């Protein structure tokens, strides 16, 4: 187990370097960021040259990348164009998005798995069919539609919540955006759980458990659900990263100043430092989430062992 974890952690290094390099190259091909900085007017050449020097944009890309990576390892993610340290931006944006993601994941786990279990156990009945239809609809509707509609209904028409989130973004204001962000994944979690439960419900060990006379509740939670959760956990694990990165739409609709917002601004202003900084952390989140998922397998199913 210990060796497995170390091996996985070591594997992260090349992935991390590759991902940042790719990001760096991608943002760089978009053109000279300084040109956009001066608004509708042309930058005067002397100031432009000076700015390029300050941000290190006058050097070849490989050199920029090496300097950047060197700085990253000392905890310096560079400076955004508005003079703010990228680390400051990270510190202000990530907590907000993490909170939003927690709300979303909470709904996915609680609502998604509950619904999935109910449907899986009543396969083919009215409940099951209607949930399947509804999840299909939810999957088919793009997030921004759900977002604007719910925002309009709850925020303006009924006035029950504030349509936008304040700059502190406490948990209670993130419930509605969290639901919107979770909606599509929630539908997937429901369907995954349902299939898995339905399949395992016919397994030998379940029949044994029932035959032993175990209470139904215990059969479902300890035997059936635990084994059925493996594909669901895999999905939720990868979804953590996807939700954080994909929050751009939701964050825009509800005016949440999180990762999505900063990434969007960074791309619009061609701010390499911001984009690469934020995406780098996202890559790390993905990697760690995946590692956790893999480690959870052995908890859920002790037959899975790591060398």
């Amino acid at each position, binding site marked *: 187990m210990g060796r497995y974890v170390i091996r996985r952690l070591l594997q992260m290094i090349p992935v991390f370097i590759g991902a940042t390099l790719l990001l760096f190259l991608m943002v760089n091909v978009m053109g000279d960021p300084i040109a956009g900085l001066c608004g509708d007017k042309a930058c005067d050449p002397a100031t432009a040259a000076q700015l390029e020097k300050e941000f290190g944009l006058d050097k070849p890309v490989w050199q920029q990348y090496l300097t950047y990576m060197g700085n990253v390892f000392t905890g310096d993610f560079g400076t955004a164009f508005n003079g703010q340290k990228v680390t400051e931006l990270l510190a202000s944006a990530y907590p907000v998005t993490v909170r939003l993601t927690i709300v979303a994941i909470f709904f996915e786990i609680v609502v998604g798995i509950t619904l999935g279990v109910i449907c899986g156990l009543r396969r083919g009945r009215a409940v099951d069919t209607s949930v399947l239809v509804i999840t299909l609809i939810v999957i088919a509707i793009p997030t921004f539609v759900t977002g604007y509609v719910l925002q309009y209904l709850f925020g303006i028409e009924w006035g029950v919540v504030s349509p936008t989130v304040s700059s502190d973004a406490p948990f209670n204001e993130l419930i509605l955006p969290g639901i919107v962000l979770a909606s599509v994944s929630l539908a997937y979690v429901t369907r995954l759980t349902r299939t898995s439960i339905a399949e395992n419900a016919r397994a030998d060990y379940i029949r044994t458990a029932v035959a032993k006379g175990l209470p139904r509740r215990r059969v479902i939670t300890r035997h059936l659900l635990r084994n059925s959760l493996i594909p669901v956990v895999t999905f939720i694990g990868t979804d953590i990263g996807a939700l954080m990165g994909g929050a751009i739409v939701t964050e825009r609709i509800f005016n949440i100043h999180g990762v999505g917002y900063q990434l969007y601004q960074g791309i*619009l202003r061609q701010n390499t430092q911001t984009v690469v900084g934020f995406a780098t952390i996202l890559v790390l989140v993905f990697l760690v989430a995946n590692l956790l998922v893999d480690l959870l397998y052995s908890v859920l199913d002790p037959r899975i062992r790591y060398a």
Partner: protein
Amino acid sequence: MRGATHAKWAAVAVAVALTATACGGGGDSGGGGGDGSGVVRSSWGDPQNPLEPANTNEVQGGKVLDMIFRGLKRYDPKTGEAKDMLAEKIETSDQTNYTITVKDGWTFSNGEKVTAKSFVDAWNYGASLKNNQKNAYFFGYIDGYDKVHPDSGSQSADTLSGLKVTGDNTFTVKLNQKFSTWPDTLGYAAFAPLPKAFFDDHDAWVGKPIGNGPYTVDSYQKGSQMSLRKWDDYPGDDKAENGGVDLKVYTDNNTAYTDLTAGNLDLVDDIPASQLKNVENDLSGRYINTPAGIIQTLAFPFYDSDWNKADSDKVRKGLSMAINRKQITETIFEKTRTPATDWTSPVLGADGGYKEGLCGDYCDYNPAEAKKLVKEGGGLPNGQVTIGYNADTGSHKEWVDAVCNSINNALDNDKACVGAPTGTFADFRNKITDKKMTGPFRAGWQMDYPLIQNFLQPLYYTNASSNDGHWSNKEFDSLVDKANAEADTATAVKTFQQAQEVVRDNMAAIPLWYQNGSAGYSDKVSNVTLNPFSVPVYNEIKVN
């Protein structure tokens, strides 16, 4: 079934949210009543650059500077006329050497006196190349600028030789050319005075700017909100009539508009295009749509020989006549644009140099004449024009397509015109500076100060800073020089208009439309207006 559960969850969520936000939600409006202590909640965009007077060249940062700074002059929020603010008097006898006297009794909000030195230090800082100030070129008319801010290489002087402090409250300015209306440019934010604190601890100052305007910065969370509060000891006569302004950063103007309709915001100064149809109804008349000092034009790449032939002006004039400005401004822009009939802006007023109809027939839609002119000019270069624009912001695609459509109809040729989008604004600017444009491209101009000079010289003078098309004309240049040397303002304006006629006769750029400022406000505030720069006049807003 799942729907029901969903609704139940939502209901629970709502209940939780309601109890939790009961005090936070509606309470932060300050609720000062009509006594002038209420706080205005206004939408804002994240400023692109650090907030320094000489480094802010976009509207969002400019809003703040307008609240926390007062310069030698201030542009009247209604007429745009440059009026003395901190300037006691500005005198000259030769349009080159100016003596400026600063009024006594003004201080920064930290108590420091505003003196002649506050200005001279600020201007030297703004002009200096090593400070990377994006508005440095504003000081380009002052003697010694080429030493402090050379086009290439490093600077050979740290201060402008044309600036001299001659007393506590007086200083002299020597310009490097005659420029009679130069004092009227001094209302621009780049010319604001700066306190010692700015130079002593720059980082702290940028974190929480200190100025001499009617407001002080109470708190500034970068990227999310700036709270400005009324400065009670403000010595000027344009004191704030509200308790303060909270500027909230919005990621999207649609969201800001949503918050306005939900009552969480008092003022939105950029109505999203998609809402223009509903805005009158939504806000029951609390909607402002007034001209601003912004003109949209189509510039031409004069460095491309195809566009710089002997008869090319006929093609350009023909294209101009092929554009149905009225129809496009009405259908696409919902009347938030006005068809242009000259190259300036109505906010200048007749005295300031705006001359309705100066463009004459060339700006009227006339398909038959358009076709004739294009033919006489030798037809479109390579048989087709492409109109360059950036696709990332400002929904330019819609109007460019409409303009092309209009040209295609007028010329009876489906392929006469196509839009040529560039992904990002930065890349678009790159192409322009690298002289890579092959056809006309969108060129917007937002005035820096309400002077006819500002609409002509930076855009059409040979090698001027924003002459993106690199048009060059000796007659125009000499008329501008002559106008700048003119002591009498009225004569200067007339001469500028003559220069503008040269622009027209060559159709150096096709004027499209004047842009309006649009804003909407809640019923909690009143006396909301937009100044000629399309920025809300915050200090005059009253909270009911």
